[in-house]
């Protein structure tokens, strides 16, 4: 019996810890993901992207392979929050890695999980070329030209890169701008 216990402590517990850490390897916060899940469809409807909508809106989630489960978790949360879509629109969610940005060709919003600067730049370039709203989990990518993210300070508020949005040809509803924190680039600062 002691041998079994020793074996459990020696092999199984480290395995569990390793597995758990692998689930949360990127350090994504569940509450933040929850906020993003509520935010993404609304950001589409509160931007001029809604003009592209017919019967449904499409959100494209780009991630590295390692963040695929988190992406799926986010998609699940969106489905949970908007089981019947939003307003009169069905919500279609597309998930892909940065190597296959083209999956976002019909999307009105591209959401980016953390990745290399190259991948991020690639996605940003794609969104810019197609005039699609881009958002990232991490606000640091605003510096790279992402249109919007989330400011995680004393309070949590949308974080908007007006210049980037302008370059992408995307405009937000005034109300959204009003409640958001406006990102100022390093150059401006």
């Amino acid at each position, binding site marked *: 019996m002691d041998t079994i216990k020793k074996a459990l402590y020696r092999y199984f517990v480290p395995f569990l810890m390793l597995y758990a850490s692998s689930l949360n390897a990127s350090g994504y916060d569940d509450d933040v993901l929850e906020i993003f899940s509520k*935010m993404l469809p609304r950001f589409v409807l509160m931007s001029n992207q809604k003009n592209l909508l017919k019967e449904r809106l499409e959100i494209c989630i780009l991630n590295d392979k390692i963040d695929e489960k988190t992406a799926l978790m986010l998609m699940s949360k969106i489905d949970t929050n908007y089981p019947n879509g939003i307003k009169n629109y069905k919500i279609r969610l597309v998930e892909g890695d940065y190597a296959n940005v083209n999956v976002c060709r019909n999307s009105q919003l591209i959401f980016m999980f953390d990745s290399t600067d190259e991948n991020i730049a690639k996605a940003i370039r794609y969104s810019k070329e197609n005039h699609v709203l881009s958002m990232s989990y991490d606000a640091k990518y605003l510096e790279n030209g992402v249109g919007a993210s989330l400011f995680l300070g004393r309070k949590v508020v949308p974080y908007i890169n007006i210049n980037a949005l302008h370059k992408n040809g995307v405009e937000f509803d005034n*109300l*959204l701008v009003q409640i958001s924190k406006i990102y100022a680039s390093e150059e401006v600062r």
Partner: protein
Amino acid sequence: MRNLSIQMKMIIGVICFTLLIVSLERYQFSENIVEQFIASQKSKNRLLIDTISPVISLNASLGLSDANKEYLDRIVEQNDDILSLTLRDNDGKMVYSYVKNNEVHFPARADEIHYFMKRIVDPVTEEYYGKADIYFDDHEYQAVIHKNRVITLQIFIVTFVLLIGFIFLIKREFRYLQKLTENVLTYDPQLNNFRLAKSDRKDEVGIIHNAVVALVEKIDSYAKLLHETNHSLEEKVALRTKELQDANRQLKELSVTDPLTQLSNRRHFETHLHDVWLLAKRSHLEISVIMCDIDYFKTVNDQFGHLMGDVVLKEIAAILTASLKRSSDFVARYGGEEFIIVLYDTKITAAEELCRTIQNRLKETGSFEYQGVKTEPITMSFGISNMIPSKNNVEEDLIKFADLALYKAKEDGRNRIVLSMD
């Protein structure tokens, strides 16, 4: 009301009119201010709630509860007049609550000035999210009302002070007129006691004052003229009266005087005899009456003419008058060439003595002359009666007995004195 003075009527009228106008103006102005304030307050409150509700709803829809709380905290911090702000979700669960000072007496009036309830709707989906209740204090409203009342009070005080000033002014002006009135009422043109001089004032009071002064001056002038005219008239009247009196006296004298002899006539004799008779009757004194007649007077007229006769009559009248000794003795022309003498309180012997005196004077005179022509010596016959008046006799008896005695003297050959024995 009719007995009220114009001064009082003016004062009452002005006070009522002023108070009415000021009250109406203040009432209207206050209503406008309050209405405008309420409209402004409603607009302000509505603007506030319309501004915050989309933000609240968007934050709520995005799940940004902390952002909502901070936003609402900033709102209540920036709006000092918010007493209470509560936010409830669709299930009635309190999401946010703020109560100022923890002790709030909510205003009773739940209107848009003091209370607002706003349904919170998702700006994207337009679904009902919950509701926000906001209570506003009414300090500003009360301050406006209070300030308005203070201003109203100040306006009324200023109006009251101005009215008091106006009343004093009116009373002073009327005192001036009253003084003028008193002077006019006590003014007597004869005393010339109007003491007010012309005024330098150019207003209506000055005009009235100067008009009255000018009127008084004219009255003075006319009074003097009237006085002089009256004086002249009085002199004329006095002169006329004197002339009239003289004329009357002359007329009276003429009525009682014989124009030829200037002796009393028969009417005057009768009046005199009546008076003397009554006097003697009361005094129990005797009266003697001498009736005398010029002897052969018809012959004188016939022989020398009536002008000579008139001369004789006048000369004899003069002798008779000159023969009387007392002022009470009375002589009159009785008619034709007959004369009569009344002697009060005189015995018959004294009367006889008088007759002799007259006879002697006639003798001394001798004849009478007219234009160089002389008459024969003239004589007279005398009949004397004497009587003490009583209830048993009358005054006509004296004449009758004197006449009878004269008749006897004539009968006995003229130039005689006959005493009546009855």
